[in-house]
């Protein structure tokens, strides 16, 4: 089983969290939808201690109360930004990528096999510097036996123009490509003086755009997407904006489409239009079927 290695990592020094730290975990989950698993709680405590020092707060209990105040949401975001690894890299979160490759793509191909146009669209929403988008393109190319006569494309969008420009250049260092399996590195990257350059074959599948996920007018043009990756992006929005973004993503998704969010991220309380899906060691969301939506309302 492809159990995530981190889930089995021992908790260093048998760290025992106190009640206020567990309370802070709950605050983060309620406001940002990110759940800190037990083996990450010691890291949460380190971040809390750093923030407390910056704010001049001595006790974890007081910091917990600070976070629960109406103004605490901004602080929660600051805290969370320190916890989530900002670094992006190729082949991140393998259980999700395995689920895409082994389960979602065959399911979509089967569901769309009678469609007039054999097209498959993936959207990397909040693509940062492009590693995720190119990874998805590699997965599509590697699934050529399944997608032989299909037209595939990856749309990659980000709010930050500099990130989009970086992504378009498609040149990466050792650090962000360290997870690329050697055969794929050889096949899809060209080494030059500036680093590893993504091959033209991969670039041909991916198109980059600067896009604000709250821009409904532009978003309405992105339709019939089969798979959306929107990982750890929603944490940057307040609840009202998050609900709008999720509604846009819902509208952009094809009926059989699948939405992946971060591996510790939840849509609970944000939208009833999505249903949770379990795949081996990975979760994702699909559009809630009408019968299920009705059942929920009963």
């Amino acid at each position, binding site marked *: 089983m492809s159990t995530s290695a981190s889930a089995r990592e021992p*908790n260093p020094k048998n760290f025992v969290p106190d009640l206020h730290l567990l309370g802070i975990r709950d605050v983060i989950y309620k406001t940002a939808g990110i759940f800190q698993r037990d083996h990450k709680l010691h890291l949460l405590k380190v971040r809390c201690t750093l923030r407390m020092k910056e704010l001049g707060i001595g006790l974890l209990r007081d910091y917990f109360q600070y976070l629960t105040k109406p103004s605490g949401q901004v602080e929660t975001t600051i805290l969370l930004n320190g916890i989530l690894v900002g670094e992006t890299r190729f082949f991140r979160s393998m259980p999700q990528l395995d689920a895409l490759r082994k389960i979602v793509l065959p399911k979509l191909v089967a569901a769309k096999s009678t469609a007039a146009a054999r097209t498959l669209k993936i959207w990397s929403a909040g693509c940062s510097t492009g590693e995720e988008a190119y990874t998805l393109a590699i997965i599509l190319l590697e699934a050529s036996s399944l997608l032989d006569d299909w037209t595939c494309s990856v749309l990659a969008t980000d709010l930050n123009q500099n990130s989009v420009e970086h992504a378009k250049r498609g040149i990466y260092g050792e650090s962000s490509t360290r997870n690329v399996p050697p055969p794929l590195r050889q096949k899809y990257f060209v080494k030059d003086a500036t680093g590893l350059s993504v091959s033209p074959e991969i670039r041909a599948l991916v198109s980059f755009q600067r896009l604000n996920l709250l821009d409904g007018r532009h978003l309405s043009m992105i339709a019939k997407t089969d798979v959306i990756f929107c990982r750890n992006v929603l944490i940057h929005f307040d609840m009202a904006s998050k609900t709008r973004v999720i509604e846009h993503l819902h509208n952009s998704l094809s009926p059989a489409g699948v939405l992946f969010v971060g591996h510790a991220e939840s849509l*609970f309380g944000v939208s009833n239009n999505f249903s*949770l899906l*379990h795949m081996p060691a990975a979760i994702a969301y699909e559009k809630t079927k009408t019968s*299920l939506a009705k059942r929920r309302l009963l």
Partner: protein
Amino acid sequence: MNGTVREQALRKLESIENMPSIPAILEPLLRYLSLPVDELQVQKVVDMISNDESLTVQCLHLANSPLYCRWQAVDSLRGAIMALGLGKMKEVALACSFMKMLPKQVGGIDPVIFWEHSLACAMVSRHLARKLSLPFAEKAYLAGLLHDFGVIANVTALPHEFAAALALARAKEIPLHEAETEVMGINHAESGRILAELWRLAPELIAVIGDHHSPAQAKTNRGLVALVGLVDLLCRMRGLGYGYAENRIVNLLEEEAYATLLEECPLVRGADWTRITFELDNYMYEVHNLVAALYRMQ
């Protein structure tokens, strides 16, 4: 289905003679530990456990394991019981006793993996029952621990057939009970029921063992059966299954176990299954270490 194969399997199960027995100490110990806490005497528990050498050794070993971080080494049974607590003691006695029932490396299943799955189901079933305020929280642990009693029956009575079923499940990445039915004409739920009835286990345990893959058919304790069935599925999807990943996509809300649980316990409606999934991951470390600690001393 090949009737002959099924009939042969049934005959072997019904004439099973070499089934390992539950240690004699277990029944009186569990009866004593179920008394109100203020009536319990640690010395009495010490006296009972000291009659079983291997349980004594396991208690000592566990009390000294990193799972129960101690400042000083525990070198007496009394100290071990004090370190573990009487509640944990009950769980350890249960786990140790049942672990002895599965022969090592027979039928192709790794006993460590099997008990990790069983213990995970026990812990998560109890966690979920408490979290959702279900009326059978105290029964959930034992029900989860024993739900796969039929695997022990199959390994003992039908070792070659079971090994073939497990190999098929692994190769086709399908649920074990489906592969068992394909190979033997009978699955571990059915064979578990036969043996559980033969042993005159409590009716609620027979229902869990016999119906956890078809909880709607349970004639008694349907809520408990459905809870364990759902937790079993969740554990298998999160890397705590039988040592391989089932290549499938699961929407819990469309599962028979969920519909049955909802019928029996309406409080389940609206539960946050994403968070429950993340919380399940928290048990990985504990389950892994507990089984490793217990097995090391067998």
